[in-house]
């Protein structure tokens, strides 16, 4: 700016710039107004999205708990099934033992040809006859000869009874094992039901999560769309601000000149007023506090005191 402008010209220039800047600012305000609406909507979408995401997070935590519970129950079922398998094998083994012992017992019973009680009775009667009764020799010989045979039969019957008792005992054990198995089966069924419930609950949550995620994605999509809508406005704002900055830069020398003129004029005015006050003081006239302040600003008090 080489030309020297008058105060009036300077004022005019500055006013032109101010006017132009104000116009830009008004435009900016309009854009900001529109942007605010968009921002409000974006905030709403963000809030909706974040609320859903938070819900999804919480639901995931919940589902995780159910899944963990389900896995725990499934682990229990697995262990229970393993122990059931072992018990089943035991039952199978006992069954085999029973079958074997029964076959042996039946064979012994066939050889014994009579119950232990019956054979004992016969044996006791024979023994009594042989040892105490007066019977014909022929009969005695027959009884004696059958004594050995009867002893063998008795032994077989005793063995058969022993086996029978063992079989009964094994049957009792088998019954207990069966009860255990029934209990285990019932427990497995209950646990499976429990696991199924946990699984269902987790699935229900996942389906809620799906819906929420879709909604959240939709909100996010809208938010991005909104950002896209806001982008040209933000660009426009940036452009206008840049233009305002340029205008302010262009206006600044004029404004500075004008300020310089105003400053000089003020200084002259104060100088004039200070001279008047000095004259007052010289004439030993009363001065006001305001007058003193003017002198202080001018740094003229020392001058006066001298």
């Amino acid at each position, binding site marked *: 700016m080489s030309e020297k402008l008058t105060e009036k010209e300077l004022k005019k220039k500055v006013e032109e710039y101010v006017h132009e800047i104000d116009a830009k600012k008004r435009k900016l305000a309009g854009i900001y107004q529109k942007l605010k609406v968009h921002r409000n909507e974006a905030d709403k979408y963000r809030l909706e999205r974040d609320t859903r995401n938070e819900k999804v997070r919480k639901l995931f935590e919940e589902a995780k708990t159910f899944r963990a519970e389900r896995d725990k129950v499934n682990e229990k079922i697995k262990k229970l099934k393993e122990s059931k398998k072992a018990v089943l094998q035991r039952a199978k083994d006992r069954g085999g033992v029973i079958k074997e012992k029964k076959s042996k017992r039946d064979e012994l019973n066939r050889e014994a040809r009579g119950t232990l009680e019956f054979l004992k009775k016969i044996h006791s009667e024979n023994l009594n006859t042989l040892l105490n009764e*007066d019977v014909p020799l022929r009969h005695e010989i027959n009884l004696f000869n059958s004594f050995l045979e009867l002893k063998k039969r008795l032994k077989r019957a005793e063995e058969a009874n022993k086996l029978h008792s063992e079989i009964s005992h094994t049957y009792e054990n088998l019954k207990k094992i069966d009860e255990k198995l029934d209990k285990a089966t019932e427990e497995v069924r209950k646990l499976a039901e429990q696991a199924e419930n946990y699984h269902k609950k987790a699935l229900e949550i996942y389906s809620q999560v799906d819906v929420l995620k879709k909604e959240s994605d939709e909100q996010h999509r809208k938010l991005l769309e909104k950002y896209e809508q806001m982008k040209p406005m933000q660009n426009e704002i940036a452009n206008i601000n840049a233009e305002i900055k340029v205008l302010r830069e262009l206006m600044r020398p004029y404004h500075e000149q004008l300020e310089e003129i105003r400053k000089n004029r003020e200084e002259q005015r104060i100088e004039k007023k200070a001279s008047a006050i000095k004259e007052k003081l010289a004439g030993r006239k009363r001065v006001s506090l305001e007058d003193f302040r003017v002198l202080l600003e001018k740094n003229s008090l020392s001058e006066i005191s001298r």
Partner: protein
Amino acid sequence: MKEVGEKELLEGIIKKHENFLKEYGKEFEQLDGVKHTREELKKKLSVLREKQSQLEHWINDSDNGEKFTEEKRKADSEINNITTALEGLPQIDEARHRELKGVVEKHKKALEYWNERKTDGKGA
């Protein structure tokens, strides 16, 4: 129930027969002794009665019959004694005697059999 072995049983049977034999044998021997004494006395009495009859005949029919009187008196006295003795002896139950004889024989036979079986080791 007490377990009885074969040897033990054989010994038991033998002991049973020995006991039976002891029990029945005692009664049989008593009965048999009386029976034997009675038969002996009866036989003796029969001989004495024959002698008494002969002596009576000799005393009545012979010329010197007196010399047989003393002898007949002795025979009469002996007959009296034997008759008294016979009357003092208990009556014999013949059926019981026969039964006991059979029983004793049976147990002896049985004892013989079981002892032999024990010795043979058939029942050992």
